[in-house]
């Protein structure tokens, strides 16, 4: 599904990713771990298509298509979703209006009619219930004054509504207490299976107890320096990142 080959990328003339190779197949869950500043968030931002990041070498294929030249919204239309580490506050647009707009713009790009209002409402209710989101929350301005946990839950709500093929979750566990973590992980796990793939970017192993990865990769200085199974995450939890840094 996602095939990254020798990816070099960065912004403002600085190359941050120094040759990433990553292959994600349908149905798989990959975890990308690594110390601060290793390039984890840059990787997710580059896959999602931020205009300020330049790919200088290598390629990103999504279902066989080179997406390096596509805008972020075009990538979203193809089924790529990024859950932000720091979701942006947008006063004046309610959560409901925002998600309606996102879904109908995506449908428009796919040549479909707007989703009928009753169907939309039903889906919103269903996904909100799954993530234990209060209906009052849906009429608030997007992310404005939300707690860290509310923001993350709202990201997963959007993911559940948009049903992407590939979901990249950037530090989704930060700011979540243990109950919220369980609810969010449950929402992510509902998406899992069959054709959908998930890339979890995290600093800590904690989230991986709930969203169990098939593969774990360690990122250091813009390269994947080690890959393994979920046991690698436990090893990192125990030993920290220093032995990886020294090895690399």
């Amino acid at each position: 599904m996602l095939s990254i080959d020798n990816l070099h990328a960065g912004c403002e003339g600085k190359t941050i990713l120094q040759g990433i190779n990553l292959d994600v197949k349908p149905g798989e869950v990959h975890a990308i771990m690594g110390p601060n500043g290793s390039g984890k968030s840059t990787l997710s931002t580059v896959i999602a298509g931020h205009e300020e990041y330049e790919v200088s070498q290598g390629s990103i294929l999504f279902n066989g298509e080179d997406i390096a030249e596509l805008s972020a919204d075009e990538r979203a239309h193809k089924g790529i979703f990024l859950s932000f580490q720091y979701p942006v506050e947008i006063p004046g647009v309610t959560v409901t209006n925002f998600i309606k707009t996102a879904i109908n713009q995506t449908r428009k790009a796919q040549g479909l009619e707007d989703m009928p209002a009753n169907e939309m409402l039903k889906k919103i209710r269903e996904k909100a219930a799954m993530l234990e989101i209060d209906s009052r929350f849906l009429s608030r301005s997007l992310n404005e004054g939300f707690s860290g946990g509310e923001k993350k839950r709202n990201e997963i709500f959007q993911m559940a509504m948009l049903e992407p093929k590939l979901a990249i979750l950037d530090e989704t566990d930060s700011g979540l207490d243990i109950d919220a973590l369980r609810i969010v992980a449950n929402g992510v796990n509902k998406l899992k299976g069959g054709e959908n793939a998930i890339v979890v970017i995290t600093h800590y192993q904690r989230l991986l107890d709930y969203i169990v990865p098939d593969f774990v990769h360690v990122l250091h200085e813009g390269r994947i320096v080690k890959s393994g199974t979920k046991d690698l995450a436990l090893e990192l939890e125990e030993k920290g990142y220093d032995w990886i840094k020294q090895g690399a």
Partner: protein
Amino acid sequence: MELKETLLSSYMAFDAQDGPQRKLQDQRADAIEVFEQQGFPTNKEEDWKYTSLRALTKGDYSVFPKEEVSLKLEDVKQYILQDVDTYKIVFVDGIYNAYLSETTHEGADICLLSAALTKRKYAPIIKKYFNQIAEKEASLTALNTAFTNEGAFIYVPEGKQVEKPVQIIHFATSKNPKLLLQPRNLIVLEKNAELQVVERHQSLSDNTTFTNVVTEIFTEQNAQLDYYKIQNDQSHASLIDSTYIAQQKHSHAKVHTFSLGGKLIRNNLNFYHKAPEIISTMKGITLIEGEQFVDHHTLVHHAHPNSESHQDYKGIYAEKATGVFNGKIVVEKEAQKTNAFQKNNNILMDDKASINTKPQLEIFADDVKCSHGCTIGQLDEDALFYLQTRGIPRKEARGLLTYAFANNVLQSVQIDSVKKRINKLIAEKLGVNIGFDV
């Protein structure tokens, strides 16, 4: 001949004519003198520093329409709020159009200034209010006074709540090109009266039009005024709007100004407090492009204690559009416990767009709360990226963020029909078709 000279000689002709203006001879004579002395304002005057009338006043305008034009409802329907029951005072090239209007004398007088000037029963009202709050020394206001003969006259007696909004609409047609329109409106709300007004000036052709409108409003004790100005004219139409509001105790006057199109728009919006415990609210959305120009000059004169004023103006300037915001707040020594708030936030969509924004606070009381803030920025790139990752294309994302930026001003609109109309106009201007809920 320069426009000033043309106008001075037109005045002589106008003065010699028979008509309602006869009733105002002395006031008009004083006013033309002020205009003769001052002429049109120039950039040398502080209040006109960023707004040049040079190009506008170069033209050769006439103050007399050559012919009376009749309009079909079909042709102008789109400019009249239809989905709400309203009173309407409609003028075409400065002449009252009975066919398109719906006036009344039941419960309140919603009619014409020309009628009010000539009927004896209105004489005390005219005497008490006409030209009493308009700034006599302002040359454009004086020019309007000198040529006063028509406009809207609304008198709401004590305790009357006018249940339907009043639309005041001025159309300019191609039949009378280069017309200088100078409507004069007088609105009086007696004690405990309530009124909603929607005012619009609309050119129906791409001719040059120049409107110099003056509106005087009096809100007596506990009266409630809710006023909307819809300024979405053609790119050859210019408007100078001077509105003067005198407020008495416990009255609340609210004015929303939506400046969405026109060549040059200057709004002089002035609130004068004549007693304590008054609320004045002014809000606006300016959304312009091309080489359009919009200037908001507001004044709140706090002269008595325990009053409030709230200002919230949002500006969005695209391409080479230019904006001016000058918010003057005067708090006199007696006006203790005044709360005065002013916000002017602007977004420049393109490199060549510009805004000059200036708060002007003159505070002589020592126990007051005054705050002002102005910002000038661009759309947030991180927010655009965030929306794009959710499948919202960049153009729509810009539209959504711009809409969101202006939204809180829209939320305070009390007439649903106006809210929907402005919402639609904003979506059209932004070139997006996003189903916003209102």
